[in-house]
């Protein structure tokens, strides 16, 4: 538990912001060893028993370093570190080389928990590769950017630290509560310098003198600056993509863009893009985006957490539908379809209980797979949900608006309306849905905006 310094509320260890008041929570500092990378670094991993004689001391010869680079992940985050290359003592953990899962000294898959150590180590290892490229006194072999046809360093005194994962993204993997709706997964938006040449299509830095983007092939147009300040190359797409998913940060700024194939694109944890690969809340094959009849469809591939789309005005609700507001995952049930949990006697005796008195539905908060906890009964024609106002309140959830949404019954049907919430109301897609320009889509821990190109 982390106790909020502002409102004293207990927060789960993985929360970055207080659920009660939104204050950023201090986190335990990562172990730092006061050594600059020597030839070999013995490492004790957090998460392993430090008393164990078998604690692996990982020998990391210099020559191993190139294998740290994930060739499938051509990603670049141009970090604004114009003043100086990193000279900090290198955290010891950064030297852990987990080039692939088999070689990890811990198993990320055994207990389903991505251990803190594992994630941190994996992320730090990638970071170490990048750090080596810039801060190492030796010439660094093969930084991640070698996968690209150019050196993505601008000539503006920007010593690009090609951190394949930003600090924020590392946090992402440890922050399961996520952010539904903007709950803070990222520490900061990594912005490119004002005058960087960024591809207007995919946001990749385009070196001086290049007319086309080396990543997406888009023509570089000096007049139209990249729409997003973030330089990131999530995917290599040979042809201009007909649509893309744009990461929306909690502060509303745009992040990396992910181009969708003109045919179909399946994303999930198994996808090589770092946008998806590190998200433990994505199923290996999570969702497929495809074009049909000139429309973009999103299909749920039987994923655990599904695809949620922000509702615009009102959507019809059906028995069993799931929706999210703030940190809450709620299930709607039509009362007539709810099965009794108490068995009858079979002798004509009726089960005694509270009169139903016109109740028509239930909402449950889902706290584990198929596991409801709190349940609210829907009885009025309109039942309002909010942090403070309404029949159903979530006073502890700082991501729910004071008045957030309504569940309504009309003519024997049921509807969900957003009532001007800040963070929106998201309905889970059943099977598949048509996406429109500007739709906001939650996949795992990340929020994307759908950009359809004309």
């Amino acid at each position, binding site marked *: 538990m982390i106790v909020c310094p502002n409102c004293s509320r207990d927060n789960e260890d993985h929360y970055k912001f207080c659920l009660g008041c939104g204050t950023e929570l201090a986190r335990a500092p990562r172990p730092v060893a006061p050594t600059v990378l020597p030839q070999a670094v013995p490492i004790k991993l957090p998460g392993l028993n430090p008393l164990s004689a078998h604690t692996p001391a990982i020998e990391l010869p210099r020559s191993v370093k190139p294998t740290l680079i994930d060739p499938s992940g051509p990603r670049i985050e141009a970090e604004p570190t114009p003043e100086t290359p990193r000279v900090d003592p290198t955290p010891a953990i950064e030297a852990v080389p987990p080039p692939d899962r088999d070689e990890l000294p811990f198993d*990320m898959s055994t207990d389903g928990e991505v251990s803190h150590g594992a994630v941190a180590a994996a992320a730090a290892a990638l970071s170490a590769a990048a750090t080596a490229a810039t801060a190492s006194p030796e010439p660094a072999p093969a930084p991640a950017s070698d996968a690209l046809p150019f050196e993505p360093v601008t000539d503006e005194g920007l010593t690009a630290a090609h951190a394949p994962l930003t600090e924020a993204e590392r946090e992402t993997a440890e922050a399961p509560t996520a952010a539904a709706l903007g709950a803070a997964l990222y520490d900061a938006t990594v912005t490119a310098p004002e005058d960087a040449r960024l591809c207007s299509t995919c946001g990749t830095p385009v070196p001086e003198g290049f007319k086309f983007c080396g990543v997406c092939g888009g023509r570089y147009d000096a007049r139209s600056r990249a729409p997003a300040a973030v330089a990131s190359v999530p995917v290599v797409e040979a042809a201009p993509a007909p649509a893309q998913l744009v990461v929306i940060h909690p502060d509303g700024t745009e992040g990396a863009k992910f181009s969708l194939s003109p045919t179909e694109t399946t994303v999930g944890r198994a996808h090589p893009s770092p946008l998806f690969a590190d998200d433990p809340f994505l199923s290996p094959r999570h969702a497929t985006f495809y074009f049909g009849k000139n429309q973009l469809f999103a299909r749920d591939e039987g994923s*655990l957490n599904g695809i949620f789309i922000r509702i615009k005005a009102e959507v019809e609700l059906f028995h069993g539908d799931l929706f999210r507001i703030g940190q809450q995952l709620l299930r709607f049930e039509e009362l007539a379809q709810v099965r009794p949990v108490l068995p009858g006697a079979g002798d004509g*005796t009726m089960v005694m209980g509270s009169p139903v008195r016109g109740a028509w539905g239930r909402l449950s908060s889902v706290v584990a797979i198929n*596991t409801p906890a709190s349940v609210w009964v829907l009885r009025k024609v309109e039942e309002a949900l909010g942090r403070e106002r309404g029949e159903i309140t979530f006073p502890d959830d700082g991501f729910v608006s004071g008045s957030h949404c309504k569940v309504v019954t009309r003519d024997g049907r049921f509807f969900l309306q957003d009532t001007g919430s800040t963070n929106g109301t998201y309905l889970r897609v059943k099977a598949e849905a048509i996406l429109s320009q500007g739709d906001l889509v939650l996949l795992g821990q990340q929020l994307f905006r759908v950009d359809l190109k004309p």
Partner: protein
Amino acid sequence: MAMVDCPSCGAQVPVEHRFCGRCGHPMKPSAPASAAVQTAFFGAMQSVGKAKLILIRGEGMDGVSYHLNAAEHIAGRKSGAILFPEDNYLSPRHANFFYDEGRLYVRDEGALNGVFIRLKEPAVLEDGDVFLAGEELFRIELREIVGETTSADHTHFFASPRPAAAGRVVQVFEGGRTGIVHSPRDGAVTIGREQCNLNFPNDRFISGRHCRVDLSATTATVTDMQSRNGTYVRVKGQRELAHGDYLFVGRQLLRVEITAT
């Protein structure tokens, strides 16, 4: 038209009718019911240590009395001396009122809905126990909610935050569906018509502030807040009855009168 009460179900039956039009119970042909009741009443007064159950009808009026003069008396929908054939919340054989060493007990005969007794003082309930407030029936749940948070392919489930406390109060609808499930943050739940944690504005039998439940890890304490109609807990097994106890047997509310000791 002169009416008498059916001795079985309490329905109003015209004096000249030979059977109760509601339950079919044979009516005594001539003697006015009130006289019969009075006669029996005085008879009961004479039998030391014997008790009777008085059926409470709408607005708190006394109805039929059931004199408990034998060793045991079965209440039920189909059999027994205390018969409520029209109350579907009674099991065919529901409860037994019996004496043991001169004391009156009620025993649940394995009834589906059981026998509820009005609280005179706070009661300590366990996981699965039920109680009544007004027309609302609640179950106490103290077990922690268990559920997988990771799927077989190691995907983490994106779930609502868990309630701060493990214990919860669960409303049970007639027919056995679950209604409200409330997990109080501080372990205390007030129940009533208004300004409580759980409000039932349309329940005519619930008081403004009716009762409260204090949940701990292993027990729940139910306290009646001087409600007009009282808070009732289900009798587990058997229980000794005292003068002035109120019982719900199905929909029937009975008052216990123990004549003398």
